[in-house]
């Protein structure tokens, strides 16, 4: 009777999961108690069960572990069964982790997530690495190799060796070989290796040539290996170190460029309102802030109405921020600034007042705390370029900053509007007498500068707080950049921003961030002594008179 029942159950399972890939494997049954054990005993219980599961080496458990990693693995409170649960409205849809059989819906209160902590996350990566070395997906194999390199899990050695033999893709094979070398050099395997094997491993790692390799090579150099291997490890170390130093300098340059681009973005709107128009625009930072809040609002709309298109939100936010900040700028110009031409110092007072008002207005509307602005997927993460780590967010900001700069340059130098702006700011009454509608030009110019500040706000929302204080953090730097570069010269702003960014980033490693910043400020003070009108000084009679 009992036997018959078991048969019946087995049959049911087979029938129910006949489409599932792993169902036919008889070992699936053996896994059940281990999977079940994931759900009990707290973190340590889960960890123990996990290590036993991965020791079984069965690819069938990959989905289970992935679910655990993603936080989709739950315990059904009623019977303690471990299930995969995915949120569907208010309830959860349950499936069997091994058989993938649908187990119906359950209310949120009926299931409890199997919690993981950092230790578990590490264990999960390691076991997934070992388990997915043979995956048909090249990307998965690649990250598996990296995971094994990191975990140096000796139990994966066998699989790894097999995988290397089968691997077609040269880059993945290299990664796997490096992982293998790492295991061989560090684990207890190291003691059983011949000099030649060690030498081969050292070469593999030297070819990898990064900081991780350096650590392993150092281990070899300080281990009980023979003198010859130690020597070759040492020479490998010095090569790697040289290479790393080179890349580090390049990396600093990139950081400088990227910080410079942020400064450029923050300053470039000011280069219009202050540099071109001569308005000491203390509300510039608030225009940036308004741009950032516009991004927030646009993203809220996307989150609410079209979460699937969230990646496009930034592209919509750009024009929106330009228009909103630009509109606010035009309103400010028409209501306040226009009465102050010819009294440039008083614009300082009025715009300072405006900046207080705008900050408080945003604080009243959006609250004083930070607002979340998300990064679209194409702006998240990083990629490696040689020895450089380049984050996508920063890369886009660099590109964006240069694009805005180029567009503004063309607008000011090559269009009739640009010519009118310059004429009006140089001699407002005369421009008016020439037939240029100065009121309109003034409003549009201030709007343009403010709109560009708004664009900067979109970019800065990606790397900084979106809070009412956002603008305050950039206003001083922006003025420094514009003045350092030479007021009224766009190229000066560009070169100024990049120079200050780069200097800052080269000083930071030696002096620290605080002292580095102080040194940059002192540099600016001294530099202005040498060139009292900035880097790209306007020359000629008109300015000197």
């Amino acid at each position, binding site marked *: 009777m009992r036997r018959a029942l078991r048969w019946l159950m087995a049959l049911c399972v087979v029938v129910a999961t006949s489409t599932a890939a792993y169902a036919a494997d008889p070992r699936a049954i053996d896994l059940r108690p281990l999977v079940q054990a994931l759900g009990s005993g707290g973190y340590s219980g889960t960890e123990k069960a996990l290590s036993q599961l991965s020791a079984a080496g069965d690819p069938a458990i990959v989905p289970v572990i992935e679910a655990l990693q993603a936080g989709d693995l739950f315990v059904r409170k009623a019977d303690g069964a471990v299930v995969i649960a995915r949120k569907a409205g208010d309830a959860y849809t349950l499936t069997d982790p091994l058989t993938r059989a649908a187990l119906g819906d359950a209310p949120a209160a009926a299931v409890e997530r199997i919690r993981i902590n950092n230790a578990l996350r590490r264990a999960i990566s390691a076991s997934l690495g070992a388990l997915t070395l043979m995956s048909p997906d090249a990307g998965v194999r690649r990250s598996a190799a990296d995971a094994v390199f990191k975990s140096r899990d000796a139990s994966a050695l066998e699989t790894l060796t097999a995988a290397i033999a089968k691997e077609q893709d040269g880059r993945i094979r290299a990664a796997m070989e490096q992982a293998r070398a790492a295991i061989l050099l560090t684990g207890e395997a190291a003691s059983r290796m011949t000099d030649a094997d060690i030498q081969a491993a050292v070469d593999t790692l030297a070819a990898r040539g990064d900081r991780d390799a350096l650590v392993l090579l150092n281990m070899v150099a300080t281990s009980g290996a023979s003198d010859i291997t130690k020597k070759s490890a040492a020479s490998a170390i010095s090569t790697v170190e040289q290479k790393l130093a080179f890349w580090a300098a390049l990396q600093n340059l990139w950081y400088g460029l990227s910080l410079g681009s942020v400064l450029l973005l923050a300053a470039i709107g000011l280069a219009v309102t202050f540099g071109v128009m001569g308005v000491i625009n203390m509300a510039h930072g608030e225009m940036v802030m308004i741009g950032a809040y516009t991004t927030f609002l646009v993203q809220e709309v996307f989150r609410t109405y079209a979460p699937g298109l969230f990646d496009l939100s930034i592209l919509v936010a750009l024009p929106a921020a330009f228009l909103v900040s630009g509109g606010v700028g035009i309103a400010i110009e028409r209501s306040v600034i226009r009465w102050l031409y010819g009294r440039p110092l008083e614009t300082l007072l009025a715009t300072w007042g405006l900046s207080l008002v705008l900050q408080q207005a945003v604080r009243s509307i959006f609250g004083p705390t930070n607002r979340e602005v998300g990064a679209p997927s194409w702006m998240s993460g990083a990629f490696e370029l040689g020895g450089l780590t380049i984050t996508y967010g920063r890369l886009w900001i660099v590109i964006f900053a240069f694009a805005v700069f180029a567009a503004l340059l063309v607008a000011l130098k090559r269009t009739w509007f640009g010519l009118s702006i310059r004429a009006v700011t*140089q001699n407002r009454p*005369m*421009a008016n007498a020439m*037939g*240029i509608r100065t009121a309109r030009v003034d409003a549009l110019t201030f709007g343009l500068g403010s709109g560009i500040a708004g664009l900067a706000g979109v970019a800065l929302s990606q790397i900084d707080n979106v809070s009412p204080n956002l603008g305050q953090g950039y206003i001083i730097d922006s003025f420094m950049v514009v003045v350092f570069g030479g007021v009224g010269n766009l190229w000066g702003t560009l070169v100024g921003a990049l120079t200050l960014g780069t200097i800052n980033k080269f000083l930071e490693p030696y002096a620290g961030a605080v002292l580095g910043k102080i040194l940059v400020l002192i540099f600016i003070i001294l530099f202005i002594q040498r060139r009292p009108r900035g880097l790209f000084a306007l020359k*000629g009679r*008109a*300015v000197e008179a």
Partner: protein
Amino acid sequence: MLDIRSLDLHYGAAQALRGVSMKAEIGKVTCLVGRNGVGKSSLLRAIVGLKPVSGGSIGWDGADVTKMAPADRARRGIAYVPQGREIFPLLTVRENLLTGYAPLPRTQRSIPEEVFELFPVLKSMLDRRGGDLSGGQQQQLAIGRALVTRPRLLVLDEPTEGIQPSIIKDIGRAICYLRDKGTMAILLVEQYFDFARDLADDWVVMERGEVMLSGPRSGLDEQEVRKYLTV
């Protein structure tokens, strides 16, 4: 025709023009003279709209432009060569000339050849900054810039100031030429009496913010005019 009636103008509490009336006709050069500080420049600034008036009216082309913005007056054909040149210092010479396009419809936007004929030096300096030019060169540029707008009322405030003799002669010839085209009224403020005398069709003489004499050259005695210019 420019028709000014009993114009008053104040700087703060001080009155610079009192009840000034005068006319300038198309096809004629009207010369406005008077000693330093009598209000000539003030009157011109009122005509082009750079200085609001406190009473009276300015009629141009049959319309009342008293309250109009300078840009709108420019669109109605009023061009101004100010005292002190007022070049856009950081614009190149070419760009300074291009600002004259503002009141023109797109089709007419070109620099008339006569500008370079009159002032050949500008042609060789197109890419230099206006502010770097010598005083006289700037004066030439200011006149050239006004001509680009194809004015029908050309208002010149001491255009010969600081200009070398040969070019003064050229400017004189140019003014004659422009007058003779018959499409333009020319209002000229000039201290250089001989130059003014050669050009003037009509005289207007000012003293202390008021018009003392006015009328066609035929109707006025030159000595009478000179009297107002001596110290």
